[in-house]
């Protein structure tokens, strides 16, 4: 029985069938999860012992396509050298495609066994019965709530079951070009709206016409969310019933973003990723981006500095997300596969300080005390780490946000609509969509 499941899974993983004239109509029927199946109780009983069953291959999906890719591959290699009987087949897919493919593949029996996803996607995939609870693994790893900031720990739990094991935390940072700063006579990175303004003007005086480019696509809405929290607002109701970013705080946040364009610190219409490319080229002096860009910047030997994002609002605050390991319901159907998967996840979770080399922040408080983190560039985000905000675990929220908030920020920064108009119209649409989702995914 076990053998057959393994063989079927391997075949359907391969997918591609060499087509011969006669074989044309041999359907690629493998075994696989039927629709709506899935084991929501989890193959429990994992006790933390290393996997000792027959050799198998785990399909591992993640989205680390950028600078963090090589670091993850190194970790995987390390794992396989330690475990003879578990092979890892890595499939790296860009995140947007990842979240579309995962449920589709899982339905078709072609999904992975383990993977990494963002914290805010766990709930959606739990509802779709794509992933399986991991409470026993969490217990055996001794993951105690105390070792994590509340904001990271909570959202991994959906309907009282833990679906993800945290790997890291990542957030926005302010990157600046040290040479430009030196030339403009700026000695310390700006820490609030006023000092940021001064810095921009000094940079312009030093000949940098557009010192801080304002994106209107990714990661503009992350900047907006950070500013929204700084101004004391909240983007969504915890229970997932409404979008609340069209209040005073939201308007202030989006208005500030547009103002940077009006003041001439940024060109008016920044193409996708152009602000990052410009920063990398030395064309612009300041950019806000995720700490996952650290490795990329290191690779071009740019003289960059990194600092917490300035406090534009009333208090420090920044958007953050977290990568979590998950195991699929598909893997959970087979005990050996499930145990191997949990062994993998458990081992990886212990390496989170090595993961700091990828520019991430270890999820566990205790891991942040190690030298690997304290010596890393992202350690200078220090205090900001206490002020990180995560989106609430609401199924389907990711899709809603793409269709609404991202549009609002895009239009507001481009100046096509006033901040108030953009936010209020999209927030009301978002609220309606969220209500529909509650019905759709609801208990």
């Amino acid at each position: 029985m076990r053998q057959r499941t393994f063989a079927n899974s391997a075949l359907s993983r391969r997918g591609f069938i060499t087509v011969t004239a006669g074989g044309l109509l041999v359907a690629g029927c493998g075994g696989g999860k039927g629709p709506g199946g899935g084991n929501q109780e989890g193959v429990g009983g994992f006790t933390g012992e290393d996997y000792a069953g027959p050799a198998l291959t785990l399909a591992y999906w993640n989205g680390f396509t950028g600078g963090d890719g090589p670091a993850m591959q190194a970790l995987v290699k390390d794992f396989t050298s330690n475990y003879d009987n578990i092979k890892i087949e890595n499939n790296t897919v860009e995140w947007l495609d990842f979240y579309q493919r995962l449920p589709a593949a899982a339905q078709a029996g072609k999904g992975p066994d383990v993977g990494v996803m963002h914290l805010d996607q766990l709930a959606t995939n739990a509802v779709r019965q794509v992933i399986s609870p991991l409470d026993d693994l969490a217990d055996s790893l001794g993951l105690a709530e105390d070792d994590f900031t509340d904001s990271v720990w909570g959202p991994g739990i959906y309907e009282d079951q833990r679906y993800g094991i945290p790997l890291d935390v990542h957030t926005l940072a302010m990157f600046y070009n040290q040479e430009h700063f030196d030339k403009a006579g700026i000695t310390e990175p700006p820490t609030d709206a006023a000092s940021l303004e001064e810095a921009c003007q000094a940079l312009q005086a030093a000949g940098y016409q557009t010192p801080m480019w304002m994106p209107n696509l990714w990661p503009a809405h992350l900047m907006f969310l950070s500013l929204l929290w700084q101004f004391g607002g909240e983007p969504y109701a915890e229970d997932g019933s409404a979008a609340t970013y069209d209040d005073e705080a939201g308007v202030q946040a989006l208005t500030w973003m547009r103002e940077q364009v009006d003041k001439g610190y940024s060109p008016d219409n920044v193409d996708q990723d152009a602000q990052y490319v410009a920063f990398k080229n030395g064309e612009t002096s300041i950019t806000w981006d995720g700490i996952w860009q650290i490795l990329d910047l290191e690779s071009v030997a740019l003289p960059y500095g990194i600092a917490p994002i300035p406090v534009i609002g009333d208090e420090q605050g920044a958007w953050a997300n977290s990568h979590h390991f998950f195991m699929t319901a598909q893997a959970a159907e087979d005990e050996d596969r499930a145990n191997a998967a949990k062994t993998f996840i458990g081992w990886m979770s212990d390496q989170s300080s090595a993961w700091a080399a990828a520019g991430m922040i270890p999820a566990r408080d205790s891991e942040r005390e190690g030298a690997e983190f304290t010596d890393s560039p992202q350690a200078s985000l220090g205090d900001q780490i206490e002020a990180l905000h995560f989106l609430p675990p609401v199924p389907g929220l990711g899709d809603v946000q793409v269709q609404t908030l991202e549009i609002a920020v895009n239009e507001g920064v481009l100046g096509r609509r006033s901040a108030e108009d953009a936010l209020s119209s999209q927030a009301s649409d978002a609220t309606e969509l969220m209500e529909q989702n509650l019905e759709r995914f609801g208990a």
Partner: protein
Amino acid sequence: MRGAKQVLRYALLVPLTLLFVSPLVFMLVTSFKTPNEAVQTPPTWWPDPFTTQAYERIFNAADTPVLRWFANSMIAATANAAIVVVTAALAAYALARLEFRGKKVVFALIVSTLFVPPVILIIPNYEIVGRLYWLDTLLAIIVPTAASAFGVFFLRQFFAQLPRELEESARLDGANRWQIFVQIVLPLSKPALATLALLSFLTNWNDFLWPVYVLFSPETQTLQAGLSTLQSANNVRYDLLMAGAVVASIPVLLLYLLTQRFVIEGVSRSGLKG
């Protein structure tokens, strides 16, 4: 007068040719640049330094098997074209030459779907393909589009206007329908069959939306889907993207160079009555 006409002609065609060729050349040139030089302005037409790092990255990475993508596209398009031609020819012959009850109904049904845009099939076919466990297999690319109403219509018109005498005399000689079809009708229809095969091949080759959503593993993807994945994962690495595009283009262009006369003549006949 003759001379002036020639000059005018070349005055139009040569700049047009430049417009068509220079982007491809630039794409090729960029693929040999370093990541930084690839995004420099003003653009350079000769890489300095000349490097194959982008190609090395593409060929060494497990998630960008560009040659595999090319092979998948070839297999899928060829298989699809083959099925289209075979099924359409058989059906078209029945509709053109055979008498049977319900013939008019069947023909009307098939022709009516000519006006039904393919968009209507996307969502339900995804559901069907998923239930068959064909997602992420080439079957999903080959089979659903293999029933071509256009093919049946096109071939039926062609068969209908073939002179009947040859078939009639073969009938008198005792040949059965199948023999007539294979030994007489098909050989006479080579141009039409070739045209249909070509059009189907090109349509399948160029198909973008369906493969993007239906194929996800790097080993299974076709060129169009794979290149799109490459782009979304590396949207600032233009050297890589251009290298990927070049690797995707060269085999096709080579094939095209060898067969272009055949291809162009085949396609050009599609607009004619047969």
